[in-house]
């Protein structure tokens, strides 16, 4: 029974992917991409990796879809022409070659068993019960630290696109939400629920699927709705408070990591302190991730000229 479900799911995934890439209109392609993202999240659920399913749905389908939609609108505003999909034999052969080889090798070569056992043994010392969070925030904390810095670097790259004279202007697209309208009403209703869900996700991350990134994405979504509805003033790149929010997460992570030096090793979380240290890091990290993701979606500062 379950294999049939997986078959249908995989078929759906492939169809959605083909429609997203080969689809006629840009808007249609983006919509199919979001649908594709959801099916991939489902696939992760089927594989039993709930943390990743959450991340894929929230970030892979959600935020990326939002960015794509924003880009489609901007391209349309800029009047960039669309043109039909081109077939191409050589690229097709190359792509099929790589994919075929990868699939063939992945199936033929016996797996080396991965680090399931090592992670299991080290879990009690890691200070958290969820093995994924243990890997993310303890065993491979250095990766996650660099990853949070990557988000900041991406934001700097996006802000670099602003023209010189626009630097003082607030970020984000031109707003045309009707004051007192449905969007504003919604923007008042949703945030409390969103914040509860987000915080729960971060807190639950220690023992069940969840974590800083997934929680941060939900909080970012909440922030976006409030900002797009005009309830919250759109931030400006040179505003001190927003920059502190951006820098808080990585800074705490760095300082906690450095403090490990005194305890005998870089990025060392001694077992009995680990849970407390990881949670403090996670709280600040979530704050920064939410701020960075929201600002990434809002984009570089743009003048308030109406379309």
């Amino acid at each position: 029974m379950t294999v049939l479900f997986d078959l249908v799911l995989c078929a759906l995934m492939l169809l959605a992917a083909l429609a997203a890439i080969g689809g006629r209109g840009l808007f249609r392609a983006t919509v199919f991409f979001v649908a594709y993202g959801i099916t991939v999240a489902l696939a992760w659920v089927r594989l039993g990796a709930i943390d990743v399913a959450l991340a894929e749905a929230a970030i892979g389908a959600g935020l990326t879809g939002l960015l794509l939609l924003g880009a489609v609108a901007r391209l349309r505003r800029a009047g960039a022409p669309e043109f039909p999909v081109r077939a191409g034999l050589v690229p097709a052969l190359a792509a099929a070659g790589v994919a075929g080889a990868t699939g063939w090798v992945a199936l033929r070569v016996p797996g080396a068993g991965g680090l399931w056992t090592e992670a299991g043994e080290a879990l009690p010392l890691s200070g958290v019960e969820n093995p994924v969070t243990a890997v993310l925030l303890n065993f491979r904390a250095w990766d996650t630290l660099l990853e949070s810095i990557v988000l900041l670097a991406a934001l700097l790259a996006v802000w670099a696109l602003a023209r010189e004279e626009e630097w003082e202007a607030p970020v984000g697209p031109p707003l045309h939400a009707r004051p007192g309208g449905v969007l504003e009403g919604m923007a008042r209703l949703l945030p409390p629920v969103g914040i509860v869900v987000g915080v729960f996700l971060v807190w639950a991350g220690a023992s069940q699927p969840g974590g800083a990134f997934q929680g941060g994405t939900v909080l970012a979504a909440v922030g976006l709705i409030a900002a797009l509805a005009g309830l919250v003033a759109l931030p400006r790149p040179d505003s001190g408070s927003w920059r502190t929010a951006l820098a808080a997460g990585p800074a705490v992570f760095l300082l906690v990591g450095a403090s490990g030096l005194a305890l005998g090793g870089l990025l060392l979380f001694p077992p009995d302190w680990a849970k407390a240290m990881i949670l403090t890091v996670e709280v600040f990290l979530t704050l920064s991730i939410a701020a960075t993701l929201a600002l990434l979606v809002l984009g570089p500062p743009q003048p308030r000229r109406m379309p």
Partner: protein
Amino acid sequence: MTGEVALAVLLLGPLLAALGCLLAGRQGSTVALLALIAGAAAVVVLWDGMLRTGPIEVRLGGWGAPLGIVLRADGLAVGFLAAAVVVMGAVWAVARHDFATPRARDVFWPSSMLLWGALNAIMVSRDLFNLYVGLELLTLTAVAMVALGRGPGAIEAALRYVLYALMGSLVYLLGVVLVYHGHGTLDLDRIAAGRSGADALALGLMTAGLAIKTALFPFHAWLPPAHAGAPSPASALLSALVPKAGFVMLVRLWFEAMPDATPPAALAVMAALGAGAILHGGLMALRQERLKQILAYSTVAQLGYLFVMFPLVGGAGAGTAGAAEAWAGTQIGAFSHALAKAAVFLCAALWIRAIGSDRLADLAGLARAMPLSCFAFGMAAVSLMGLPPSGGFIAKYLVMRASFELGLPGWGLVLAAGGLLAAAYFYRPLAALFAREPPRVQRTPRLLEAVPLALALAAAALGVLSQPAYDLLQAGAPAYARGIGP
């Protein structure tokens, strides 16, 4: 213990400094200066510790190889850390005057610190996925700097750079997935211990990905517009340091992680691509009208030099003294290229500030108006051409001698031809500088001109005092690089 503290300063310092620069706004450059001083001190401590006790290994979080991430500062890594600090310091000195507007200042200083931090992280990391994240951070900061460029093509160059980089990192990641599936670990030394059927395909994919990131010949289309479009102090960083990260990763993969997964034919293909880069880069540089474009194509060519060593170090010559010479020569060549290329780009930065354009026609006669920076440009060009006295020459000599000893003289002649080509495309700007009537020049403080001169002299000094550089490379070098059998 002090080694680990020094490494911590070099890894966490730049990242903290970047956050500091973001918050400090106007005082961004001062925060950067503090970080650079700390970084320089840390490199000296590492260098000394390295020579005394061999490579410094750090098990992050105390977890050790399979589960956690291991960092190792061996001779090669410390050499690049030192080169990075020197180049960053020089770029800091010149960039202080350049990025006046709030937008440029608030993006350049944090990004440059992040770039430096990412480079340090990549040089010392022994974990494949950690290398991926470091490489991605390096690329995004580099894209940010290219996007800062004021010229018309800057946005297009940044876009092409990001597209190439995206696909490069994904292809590399595909290789990493296959390695994890085959070996069950991501640590270089543990991968070297085991064998897996997926090694060949994994290495092929990782090499393709890194070749795109290092702008090796067929995948170099993104580099010239990006490095010419970026503001000059930034292109000094981009050309001198960024492609070296991909190259070091390739060297570690091919010769430390999977030495015998590479058939001799593949080694020859890498060197052939390098030769193609030397030829194509050189010929294209001959046809450019703007100085920064010449320097950008020169980077494409000089990167080709680094790949000529592959068939000499691996394959038949593996483990012989010749292989160790070729390896050491190439690394010294990489260090001196970093110093010299940074020097010539910083000269371009000063000249663009002084006369507003880098077209060869407008540069005519600059030797009279700005003698110091023109002399620096000449010195650095000498090193890039591989003429004595310079690090470039020592590198060319060592690799050529190794190629003759190992019975593959063809690759040595490629280097010789490359040197001639470099002389050809550097001659045009040099002759232009020497023309008679100096252009109208906006006053540049003499101290600023001394910065590229210091870098050029460092590149030349690498030619005279190359023994310490050689000893550093040998300390902690993996077996294949010490002339001892694998």
